[in-house]
């Protein structure tokens, strides 16, 4: 169920990803969501399993709503260019740190006679390569 409306929010430009509050409706929506979570936790406080389940459902609901708003948020061409450049720069920064992390980990483990690389770090790099390739392929076909 989608409740939040794109006109209540703005793209978060500073301090991470996601949404920023634009109107009082956006602030009221977030306040209502957090009050609902507190009430749900209070109601289910006798069973930890119930609390976890309710929190999980609440998080899923919030994620669906947030992604829906982010998908529908209108951006003009200048904003799209700004967002693309900012995301590219962020991806480069993360890629450099992850690659450095893999290098240091391999070096450290090799010196200690082990062969181990964190699968999540390698996974992030591999997923990045796949997403970049698929995006370029689709864009080349489109225009």
């Amino acid at each position, binding site marked *: 169920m989608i409740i939040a409306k794109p006109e209540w929010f703005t793209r978060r430009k500073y301090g991470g990803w996601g949404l920023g509050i634009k109107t009082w409706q956006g602030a009221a929506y977030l306040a209502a969501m957090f009050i609902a979570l507190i009430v749900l936790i209070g109601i289910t406080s006798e069973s930890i399993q119930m609390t976890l389940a309710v929190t999980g459902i609440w998080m899923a609901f919030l994620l669906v709503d947030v992604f829906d708003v982010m998908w529908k948020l*209108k951006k*003009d*061409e*200048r904003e799209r260019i700004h967002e693309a450049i900012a995301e590219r720069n962020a991806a480069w920064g993360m890629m450099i740190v992850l690659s450095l992390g893999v290098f240091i980990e391999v070096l450290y483990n090799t010196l200690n006679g082990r062969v181990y690389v964190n699968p999540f770090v390698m996974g992030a790099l591999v997923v990045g390569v796949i997403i970049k390739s698929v995006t370029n392929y689709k864009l080349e076909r489109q225009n």
Partner: protein
Amino acid sequence: METKIREFRKEQKITQEELAAMVEVTRQTINSLEQGRYNPSLELAYKITKALKKDKIEDVFIME
């Protein structure tokens, strides 16, 4: 890119917000265009030209 958006906008007595709404961009984009800090797409240049009631894109946008 230099533009005559501000001049023609004043002529038409419309604000940056109003022009932005007419061509479906933000006020900041109109401001950037007026300052010559942003080069628009052909589509946006065309929309702005029509919104300012001018015939040719080159009347509004001056290629240096």
